[in-house]
């Protein structure tokens, strides 16, 4: 566990950089985490991020298949939005825990 400063706020994150408290998340924090990951966020990214936050809050176990079936973006599109880590990077930027999913 460590603290990071994003958008002028002190945010608690785990060793891998995932935020510990999703309620601390803001869009400005997302932009900064994304920058660290080398991703420039667009409206489409935020649609995916908001979907992930909503599902995570509802207790859904997340997978790229679920995102692909969400109607927001297909799986190929998800890989294009978050290259090299469609689920791990999108979750990190969404301020939610890293999904414990193999799919």
């Amino acid at each position: 566990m460590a603290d990071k400063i994003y958008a002028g706020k002190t945010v608690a994150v785990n060793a891998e950089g995932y935020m510990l408290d999703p309620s601390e998340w803001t869009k400005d924090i997302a932009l900064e985490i994304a920058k660290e990951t080398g991703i420039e966020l667009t409206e489409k990214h935020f649609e995916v991020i908001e979907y992930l936050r909503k599902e995570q809050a509802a207790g859904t176990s997340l997978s790229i298949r679920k995102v692909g079936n969400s109607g927001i973006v297909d799986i190929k599109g998800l890989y294009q939005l978050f290259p090299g880590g469609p689920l791990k990077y999108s979750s990190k930027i969404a301020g939610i825990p890293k999904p414990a999913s193999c799919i």
Partner: protein
Amino acid sequence: METPLKKVMIICAKGTIEDVYAALIMANGAVMEGIEAKMFFTFFGLDAITKKQMNKLHTATVGNPAMRMPGGLVFPSLLGVIPGVEAGVSAMMKKQMDALDIPPVDEFLDMITAGGGEIYACKLAADMFKLTIDDLSEHTKAIITVGELYAMSGGEGTQIIFV
């Protein structure tokens, strides 16, 4: 310092549900982590990418010592030979996998190729089973020789995994 894994070559030589899914899950898991993945299907593993068979894979109810009844009792091999029993067991496995969000084979291949994974068939096995590229799923990039497989397996941080 450890060399991070950069590429996995996953060879699938068996056609049962559990073997094919082990290979698919490893390949999909790799591309999700940003690791390059190439799959090579050979021998009975070719069923997983053969249009007619790919979504109708089965499991072995005979000669499988890990097969158990619901509740954990040993599954007698003799029971496995009764018509319909194997189909019932395979259907139950698929239902349990669906509940865990594990997709059917064709959709799984969609997911892997969407992430940049590549699917190949073994030339020798395809010749043996008299299969051409037209018999294989559209995910299949090419039918290749073992030499071509090795030629793709170069580079630091590459592992070959045999299922």
